[in-house]
């Protein structure tokens, strides 16, 4: 059974102004998130992903549909009952949202006080968490004395305080520079691997998905338009919006504009070969072309690695006798996905 199950979940708001129109932020979304997943939800701003994640801990009530956490239906629960559910779901935010009036220790201790822990236990747990995120020496500092990366580490420690099974990360790295982003992503990965926490990552950066997610859902205008294993979505995105996102991190098939430049620079026919792990190797392709006595060069593309599995697109310029090229491409097509780009 999935840890988090969403079935036909929708959320709409009354539009601003006096009209009776509704804005649908989340539109008929169904997802299953298994325990241990790092589930990425990617979309442009306004795609509804921040609203979607707030439905999971019921900060916003769903308009319709069913949301189950560990088998328990949470839609329709009263606010008081939801507070208990929220203790089991941590959340980190883009702008950190630390309590400025409290010290680092006070911030991390807050959810434990809410949960009714004893003072001595709180102290020990906060020490343990600060050691985990590497901020033991900052226990007495105020948030405004910390750097962005340190603030987010406090945010993560605070979100994990009550040992939740689920962590929601809402654009947790979007306010950070690239180096700090990697640092925070590495920490989230440790949270997932060492503590077994299931993480739902909301982001508009494909890089974040690429770095830590195991599954991904692509959202566009409130709908989930594609979801699955990160490898599958990255190696063969079906929806144009997914393809654009994948294109931001993966050098794949050349765009028409890029193709025009390639044609200017390289003679011959241009073909793109796509590889996924388990398929025939590149060596077979090169061998086929060489055996046909053709001259070829690599002009575009690359090989990518996602959690130990490789895939990629290589675009080649092939020169030689036209009939020989046709024969060679037919041979290649028998074991590899090849398309001639015109």
């Amino acid at each position, binding site marked *: 059974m999935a840890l988090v199950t969403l079935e036909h979940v929708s959320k709409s708001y009354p539009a601003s102004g006096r009209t009776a129109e509704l804005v649908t932020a989340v539109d008929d979304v169904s997802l299953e998130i298994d325990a241990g997943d790092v589930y990425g939800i990617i979309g442009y701003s306004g795609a509804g992903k921040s609203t979607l994640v707030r439905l999971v*801990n019921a*900060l916003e009530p769903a308009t319709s549909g069913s949301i189950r956490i560990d088998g328990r239906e949470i839609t329709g629960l009263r*606010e*008081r009952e939801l*507070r*208990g*559910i*929220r*203790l089991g*779901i*941590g*959340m980190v*935010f883009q*702008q950190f*949202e*630390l*309590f*400025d*009036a*409290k010290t680092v220790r006070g911030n991390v201790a*807050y*959810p434990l*006080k*809410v*949960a009714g822990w004893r003072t001595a236990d709180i102290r020990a747990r906060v020490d343990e968490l600060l050691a985990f995120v590497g901020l033991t020496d900052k226990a007495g500092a*105020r948030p*405004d004395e910390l750097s962005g990366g340190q603030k987010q580490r406090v945010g993560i420690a*605070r*979100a994990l305080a*009550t040992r939740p099974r689920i962590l*929601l990360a809402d654009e947790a790295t979007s306010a950070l520079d690239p180096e700090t982003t990697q640092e925070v992503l590495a920490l989230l990965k440790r949270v997932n691997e060492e503590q077994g926490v299931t993480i739902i990552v909301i982001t508009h950066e494909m890089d974040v998905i690429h770095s830590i997610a195991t599954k991904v859902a692509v959202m566009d205008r409130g709908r989930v338009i594609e979801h699955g294993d990160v490898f599958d979505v990255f190696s063969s995105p079906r929806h144009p919006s997914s393809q654009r996102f994948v294109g931001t991190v993966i050098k794949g098939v050349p765009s028409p504009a890029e193709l025009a430049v390639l044609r200017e620079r390289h003679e011959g026919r241009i073909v793109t070969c796509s590889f996924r792990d388990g398929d025939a190797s590149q060596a077979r392709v090169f061998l086929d072309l060489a055996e046909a006595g053709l001259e070829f060069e690599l002009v575009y593309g690359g090989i990518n690695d996602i959690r130990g599995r490789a895939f990629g697109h290589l675009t080649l310029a092939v020169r030689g006798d036209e009939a020989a090229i046709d024969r060679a491409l037919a041979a290649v097509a028998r074991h590899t996905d090849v398309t001639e780009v015109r």
Partner: protein
Amino acid sequence: MDRLLELGPEFWAAAGETLYMVALTMLFGGAGGFLLGLGLYATRRGGLLPNAVVNNVLNVVINFFRPIPFIIFIAAVQPLTRAVIGVGIGTDAAIFALSLAAAFAIGRIVEQNLLTVRPGVIEAARSMGAGPWRILRTVVVPEALGPLILGYTFIVIAVIDMSAMAGLIGGGGLGYFAQLYGFRQFEPVVTWAAVLLIVVFVQVVQYVGNWLARRVLRR
């Protein structure tokens, strides 16, 4: 100047009355205004305990009383003063009127300062399972403490100003002293002595307020 020296005992008594009125007004009006402001803040639409009825009532009451000039308010509220305090004149009666007027003003200032708390930290506290009352007590008020102190400092000074009108119902104080012995008896030195002491009070209050706010904000 001789006249001022002659009036020495009355002068210091008046100063004491002003301090007494301001202190008790800040105690009662300050507490009442804090609750009013908290109520306004919590019950607003999208707030922690949204309640349109309570919010509208609070708003109407505050908007009704706040624009009334204090010199008129103190007279108009006299029947209520008599009912609550027992008498309609004197220092205690003045404190009642002052507290009432101050509470309405403080209510607005408290509301405004609480609104400076970022919605994000409230959402963060909610995500940790905290309820609305706990969030008000342990997040909203502490996060707004710096601006709240500055707001209260502003109000202390306004109350010192209002207390000068307490003389109208026999409340005494420096304002009344300056009126009676300075203005009406053509003794500018006496008037200015009262003014100077009030300025000293204001300076001290502002200094302490700034110092406290700085300590809280640590900036």
